């Protein structure tokens, strides 16, 4: 029984303590600096209300508009980052010549924080929409490049030797050795990139968005609709969790050979 499992109760206790302390500090004790923090009960009522005071709840279309925009941006940026970053990284890892051309450049551009790209992105791209996506993309892109590169370099050289002996052409080597061999690292990159996408997205939306959860949080702050800040944060937490779970599921499907090796994929 899942309810009887100690993990379930321990988890519930953790949640309960967190919400309890939050409720105590913000609603009962009203500690200094905590008086402006919305209490959990008020937030929950607002979130689930048919007729929310500040106009955002699970029954208002605007709430879903914010969510929709954020998901669309994060997903577009993430897919672009994977589609461009993985081949680039794998190729850098595989070909020393290509690596010598590109690696120093990548290492120089990579440390630039995503937010520093905002003005550049607004100048370069038409409209703020693509600027936000670009900033999100940048964050995820370098995580993908670097992890794919490490993945390709982590492959035991004996597999390349075996491929040569078996008469593989370079393209066969790339498809059948480099790509699957680097997959465990690429998968780590996917998880990292997913998190970084949300991270950069919200920051980008606060600065340049007209919709989206980042915008929603910042507007909640500007207009003193503090409950909306917490609703936005909670929504981000749920979306982030769901997207990470999705990536993990994808990873398990991609690497059946590893699952079986480790003994049936038990957690």
């Amino acid at each position, binding site marked *: 029984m899942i309810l009887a499992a100690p993990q379930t109760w321990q988890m519930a206790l953790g949640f309960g303590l967190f919400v309890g302390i939050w409720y105590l500090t913000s609603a009962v004790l009203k500690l200094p600096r905590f008086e402006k923090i919305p209490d959990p009960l008020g937030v929950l009522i607002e979130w689930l209300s048919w007729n929310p005071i500040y106009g955002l709840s699970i029954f208002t279309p605007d709430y879903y508009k914010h969510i929709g925009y954020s998901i669309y941006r994060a997903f577009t940026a993430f897919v672009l980052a994977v589609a461009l970053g993985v081949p680039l990284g794998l190729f850098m890892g595989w070909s020393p010549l290509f690596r010598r051309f590109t690696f120093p450049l990548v290492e120089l551009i990579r440390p630039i924080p995503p937010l520093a790209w905002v003005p550049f992105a607004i100048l370069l791209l038409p409209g703020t929409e693509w600027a936000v996506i670009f900033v999100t993309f940048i964050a995820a892109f370098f995580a993908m490049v670097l992890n794919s590169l490490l993945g390709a370099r982590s492959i*035991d050289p*004996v*597999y390349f*030797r*075996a491929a*040569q*002996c*078996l*008469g*593989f*052409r370079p393209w*066969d080597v790339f498809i*059948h*050795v480099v790509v*699957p*061999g680097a*997959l465990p690292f690429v998968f780590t990159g996917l998880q990292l990139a997913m998190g970084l996408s949300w991270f950069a997205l919200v920051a980008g939306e606060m600065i340049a968005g007209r919709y989206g959860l980042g915008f929603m949080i910042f507007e909640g702050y500007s207009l003193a609709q503090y409950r909306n800040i917490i609703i936005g944060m909670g929504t981000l937490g749920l979306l982030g969790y769901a997207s990470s779970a999705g990536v993990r599921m994808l990873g398990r499907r991609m*690497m*059946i*050979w*590893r699952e*079986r*090796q480790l003994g049936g994929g038990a957690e």
Partner: protein
Amino acid sequence: MLQGSPRSETGGALSIRSVGKVYDPGGDHVVALEQFSLEIPSGQFCAVVGPSGCGKTTLLNMLAGFESPTSGEIVMDDEILAGAGKRLAPGADRMVVFQQGALFPWKTVLWNVTCGPVLQGRLSPDRAEADARAMLARVGLEGIEHQYPGELSAGMLRRVEIVRALLIEPKILLLDEPFRALDALTKSVMHECLLELYDLTRKTVFFVTHDLEEAIFLADRVVAMTARPGRIKKMIKVDLPRPRDYRIVSSERFGQLKREAVDAIYDEAKKAFEAGEREFA
């Protein structure tokens, strides 16, 4: 014993002509091999034994095309494979069975053993699969085609790897201490399995090992090498009849051959051991 018809003459005569190999890491002049010459006729099973560091793996790497010699040349069927400082890229005509195993863990057994001929376009996937199933069955591996290497035991992996090597029909098979990590029982099963496949295909085999008994049991000729720099200490022709099975190990002739080989190699092993002691002192 299974009797297969030997395939048509495929060449694979190997000629190693005064090959030398010098490594120079950071200015240290390490002579791995010196003036090494050896002729291996087509279809012969040749085992090379020697103490660790005698250059036997270096020699195999040069035959495979992973490294080039510093001097001398290596010729296979009138084609120069390698000369001083240059070499042909490795290819399917010289298949290596690696010491640590090199089946692709992310591919099924079937893909692993059929990829060579299929990717080269030499066989259709169906034909390659039929061949693979037949040869896997010969070595007692039926019904594992769709498993991944990580699911198999060490002994099964080695058999799959040898099957893969033979299915690409190389001219010469290069084995680099392939049974080193196996327990004694698995090892002797593997020996019979390898001999069966050898009797079936009669490829030229170049087998590197440090295990004397293994070398004598398997080979037509045993080449005992000196400690570094590697040179030929003694050649022993193994005139034991084929097909062989494990009972031959207790025969009188086997004992004689072994004594002969031990006498040749003992001094060298001792030298290598003492040199090693000095290196670490």
